[in-house]
């Protein structure tokens, strides 16, 4: 069972691996430009496993910013993970004891959360380990490659690769949006609010924007389209 779940997690991690490889490649280039060594860039990726927070963090390092600034920036940009952790905590099977929760907490990224939380039924620790391992290797490896050899890849190719993760997001949200009115409403309201903030309220940071959009649209949809929960009892196979 463990091996089977681990393997399934690893398989689900492959698209994330490929997406991360290209995105963290860009981060690697940025980190070296900001004055970090290849090893330091790799360490940032290994210990943080997040895109926007790392980019902002490296900017603060380059500018010689204060630690308070670093803490506030990470809190703001990464606070969305708290919401994701809370949501995902409802989908954990019984074998998730404290050490296993402490380990898996490390790997709650936008993409891993997206895949894990949209699985049918409950998720197991080994499924999470497999997905986090494969995704994490992609993230660190891409960072090292970008930091070491970033300038070798033609700009139009690396630009195009920047779309991969967004493509993956659409592939996650659209099929259920076709089937469920509530999901469709959540997707459309969140996108709408996100555009309003981006174009009309640009002083709101990207991290906060995600929180605001998600909370407002999920509240609206929970009120208008409350769900029955019969399918949550079964554990995934």
């Amino acid at each position: 069972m463990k091996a089977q779940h681990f393997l399934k997690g690893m398989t689900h991690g492959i698209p994330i691996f490929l997406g991360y490889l290209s995105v963290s490649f860009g981060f690697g280039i940025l980190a070296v430009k900001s004055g970090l060594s290849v090893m330091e860039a790799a360490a940032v990726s290994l210990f943080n496993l997040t895109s926007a927070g790392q980019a902002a963090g490296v900017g603060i390092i380059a500018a010689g910013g204060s630690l308070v600034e670093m803490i506030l920036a990470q809190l703001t940009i990464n606070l969305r993970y708290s919401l994701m952790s809370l949501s995902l905590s409802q989908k954990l099977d019984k074998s998730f004891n404290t050490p296993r929760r402490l380990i898996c907490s490390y790997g709650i990224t936008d993409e891993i959360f997206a895949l894990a939380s949209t699985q049918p039924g409950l998720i197991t620790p080994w499924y999470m380990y497999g997905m986090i391992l494969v995704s994490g290797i992609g993230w660190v490896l891409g960072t090292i490659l970008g930091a070491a050899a970033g300038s070798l890849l033609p700009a139009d190719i690396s630009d195009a690769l920047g779309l991969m993760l967004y493509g993956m997001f659409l592939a996650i949200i659209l099929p259920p949006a076709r089937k469920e009115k509530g999901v469709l409403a959540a997707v459309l309201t969140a996108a709408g609010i996100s555009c309003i903030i981006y174009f009309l309220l640009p002083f709101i940071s990207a991290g906060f924007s995600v929180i605001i959009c998600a909370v407002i649209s999920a509240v609206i949809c929970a009120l208008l389209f409350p769900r029955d929960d019969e399918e949550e009892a079964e554990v995934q196979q």
Partner: protein
Amino acid sequence: MSIAIYIAVMAGVTYIIRMVPFTFFRRKIKSRFLKSFLYYIPYAVLSAMTVPAIFFATGSIVTAAAGAAAALVLAYLGLPLIVVALSASAAAYLTGFIMNLF
């Protein structure tokens, strides 16, 4: 200041944000409203992160829009994640290539 200290602080804050709700929140939520709320959160989060950011991901709105359109159609048809993701990149690259011919 040493870069290692920056990295340690950054990593510590990021980990705590993820760890606290994941580790210490053990109750099963009973409220139908809260359950529905948490069910819709991932879709809302992903949608908010994708729109409008997808249109600025390649540095050219035209190539990004081409990639987004390809992803939209293929995702709507229910194709696998990796197919949709690679097709989005390929469509953006090809559009940029064609634009450069003129």
